[in-house]
């Protein structure tokens, strides 16, 4: 096996991985950085983010407002000290991207422009039309080319971490083009592999979003935190799940049921007014909007279409010219994929899985409990999203915590000696054998389970048991089903036996990762006997229970068996758990809180 000696290995070259690489290179140009990605960096799923990225800029806004929106939006299981740091850094990071060339949309005077987003009290979402993630990713990728110490491993697929003497010391990768294995030795490792939305059926995620890094860390004993919190985005394309950004509503789009009625007013988000009001109606948070859809469907007030029930996202009143300027990609998606002209006809939408709030447990410095291992971006749980992420906080997170991870990993790399190559190689050879056995199989027999069948059954059971509303019985059925699929996975059939671009094999490895992540989600969900944020139960646990569940779940890997779930404390600095209300009720609650604070 080939060996590459790096100081820092970064798995993932999306927004978080690229930002980390640049930060590490700037912290110490002497360090050799291996930036590994299973796709070319600009294909990473950050590319698909549409709406925008948060950062306080307006004079009537404040860091406190951003903090309160985030913590309340997360239903109070956020790490408040980390949120304080986060909101204080966002704007600088957005300016940094601007200096690197990101084409932010502008006001006539040349300053950057901001738009409204769900759950945000004041407009603070920086945007580049409706291709924000695309522009951020390309800006970061192209800027990273400036730094000679960043050595990229494009289209290298990571199969394992190498851990020795209680610290991570490298990673094992497959070169997709050849099927060859390489051990990349590193003194510190950053995981930035993105989310895991593809474990669900209908989702907004790209094919590569399979939770690989979460599973790799988890298998080495690092807990996955808050995995039960999975965000459904309320406005997605029926069938494919492709996203119509929240910016559609930020710009004034309306949600209508089959009677043309703005149904959100029936779910504590009203009153319905002509002009968009922040944190009300269509600008409420995602969990509430997806839940309202579910109830409308129960009441028979949705529209039935071949790919399921839908409601209408109405943008007609914004007019073609404005839509083409602010939401050009949305316009094209509707036209090309649905044959709908949004200036003339409302767009049919339904909720789909979008974002994993939980992930690899790390502290505010992005350090996991395993020495030398850091994580940033959607794969991590640094603690800012709680039970429900606010739109536009995630892109900002990639920058703020990508940078932190890069700096910290660089510091750590300086503090330790390189590992013993011979013994690391022995471990790497074991990882290689494990991966190859999926194709060659120990028993020499042909597998009988199709990858696609297992994947489909997994995605269906996750939707059935861990969807917008959850029941004990159905979650139990999902846990059982995932356990069954893990057994059947041992008998998976990788048809392709070749070395060059064997995607059949890589899909099988990804499916193994997905099953572990799905299991962590399902068991974390069934154990949380309350309703909070994106985790809503209808079986006697409809209310939030701060006495027993104002805490983070932590799933620990247990090999063949069910994960062990325990709980960690939530850090509260200045916001005591309160009633989470939006619309007029939310404004009233906020006034009361402010008055109470002034007495």
């Amino acid at each position: 096996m080939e060996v590459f000696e790096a100081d820092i290995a970064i798995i993932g070259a999306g927004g978080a991985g690229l930002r980390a690489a640049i930060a590490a290179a700037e912290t110490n140009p002497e360090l050799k950085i291996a930036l590994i990605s299973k796709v070319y960096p600009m294909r990473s799923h950050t590319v698909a983010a549409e709406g925008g990225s948060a950062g306080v800029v307006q004079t009537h806004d404040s860091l406190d407002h951003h903090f309160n929106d985030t913590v309340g939006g997360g239903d109070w299981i956020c790490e408040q000290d980390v949120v304080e740091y986060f909101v204080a850094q966002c704007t600088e990071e957005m300016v940094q991207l601007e200096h690197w060339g990101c084409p932010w949309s502008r006001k006539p005077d040349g300053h950057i422009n901001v738009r409204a987003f769900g759950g945000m009290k004041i407009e603070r979402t920086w945007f580049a039309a409706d291709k924000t993630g695309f522009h951020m990713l390309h800006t970061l990728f192209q800027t990273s080319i400036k730094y000679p110490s960043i050595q990229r491993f494009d289209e290298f697929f990571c199969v394992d971490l190498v851990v020795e003497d209680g610290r991570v010391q490298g990673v094992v990768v497959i070169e997709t083009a050849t099927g060859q294995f390489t051990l990349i030795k590193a003194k510190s490792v950053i995981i930035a592999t993105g989310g895991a939305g593809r474990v669900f059926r209908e989702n907004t995620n790209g094919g590569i979003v399979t939770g690989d890094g979460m599973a790799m860390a988890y298998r080495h004993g690092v807990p996955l935190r808050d995995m039960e919190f999975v965000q459904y985005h309320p406005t997605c394309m029926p069938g494919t799940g492709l996203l119509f950004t929240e910016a559609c509503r930020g710009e004034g789009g309306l949600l209508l049921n089959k009677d043309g009625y703005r149904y959100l007013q029936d779910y504590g988000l009203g009153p319905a007014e002509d002009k968009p009001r922040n944190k009300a109606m269509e600008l409420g948070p995602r969990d509430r909007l997806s839940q309202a859809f579910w109830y409308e469907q129960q009441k028979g007030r949705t529209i039935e279409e071949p790919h399921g029930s839908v409601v209408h996202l109405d943008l007609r009143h914004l007019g073609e010219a404005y839509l083409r300027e602010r939401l050009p990609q949305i316009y094209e998606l509707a036209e090309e994929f649905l044959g709908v002209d949004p200036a003339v006809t409302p767009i049919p939408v339904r909720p789909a899985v979008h974002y994993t709030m939980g992930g690899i447990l790390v502290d505010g410095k992005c350090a996991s409990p395993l020495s030398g291992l850091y994580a940033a971006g959607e794969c991590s749980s640094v603690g800012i999203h709680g039970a429900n992420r606010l739109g536009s906080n995630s892109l900002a997170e990639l920058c703020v915590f990508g940078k932190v991870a890069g700096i910290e990993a660089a510091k750590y790399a300086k503090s330790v000696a390189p590992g013993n190559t011979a013994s690391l190689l022995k471990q790497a050879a074991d990882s290689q054998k494990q991966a190859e056995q999926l194709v060659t199989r120990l028993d020499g027999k042909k597998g009988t389970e199709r990858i696609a069948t297992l994947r489909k059954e997994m995605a269906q059971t996750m939707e059935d048991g861990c969807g917008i509303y959850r029941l004990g019985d159905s979650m139990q059925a999902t846990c059982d089903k995932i356990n069954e699929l893990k057994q059947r996975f041992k008998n998976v059939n990788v048809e392709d036996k070749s070395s060059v671009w064997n995607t059949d094999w890589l899909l099988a490895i990804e499916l193994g990762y997905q099953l572990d992540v799905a299991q962590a989600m399902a068991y974390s969900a069934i154990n949380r006997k309350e309703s909070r944020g994106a985790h809503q139960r209808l079986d006697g646990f409809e209310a939030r229970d701060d006495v027993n569940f104002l805490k983070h779940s932590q799933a620990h890997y247990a090999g063949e068996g069910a994960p062990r779930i325990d709980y960690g404390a939530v850090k509260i600095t200045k916001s005591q758990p309160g009633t989470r209300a939006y619309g007029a009720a939310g404004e009233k609650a906020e006034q009361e809180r402010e008055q109470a604070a002034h007495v």
Partner: protein
Amino acid sequence: MSEIEKIIPIEVLRYRPEQDTEPVLQTFQVPFTDDMSVLQGLQYIKDYLDGSLSFRWSCRMAICGSCGMMVNGIPSLSCKTFLRDYYPVGLRIEALAHFPIERDLVIVMDDFIEKLESIKPYIIPKKPRTLIEGEYLQTPTERDAYEQFSSCINCMLCYAACPQYGLNSKFIGPGIMALLHRYNIDSRDGGKAQRMEMVNAEDGVFDCTAVGYCSKVCPKHVDPGNAVNLNKMESAKDYFLRFVMPKGTGK
């Protein structure tokens, strides 16, 4: 779901270097519905008919740039090309033209990446600014000037369409020319001289015949042909042959 399932023949150019001496066509009968993309057709083949078929894809929404291929001879993003448009005759899918085939529909894209890296695709500030000074001011008009050229998703369809690149791969080509132009005309940038200096005259012939096919196939309205032509005109001011590979990075 209530739709009646139709079947469409999809012919795919296969090439497995460990087993095929040259590319061969293979036909699959694929059930489809009217909303299915060509990419979804390929996924069906991989999932249920032949797991060994290889192709790149990810976003499914025409933004990651992975899924470029030839559909009936036309460079296309398979995720936003629809099967219904080829029914009942069927369609033929091949790897992107003008690039070496690595396997099946996967091409070797090293040349494109090397070109991208070579043109300094980042802001070289006219006037450096600290973070505390805040953002550079840039009016909407100044932004609009380069925005179109910054929308390139690196899908390389324009390279598969470019007759000149097909003849001489040293030609820097439409997409990267658009990227170079994007930075040169950004009001924050002062690196144009450096970028143009690197584009050297001796390494091959620049002979864009301005057929404009590159712009026609571009799925993102970048109009890379326009970037080439704008710079061609400008180049006439000093020397003509500058849009070829930078010294030393060509293969």
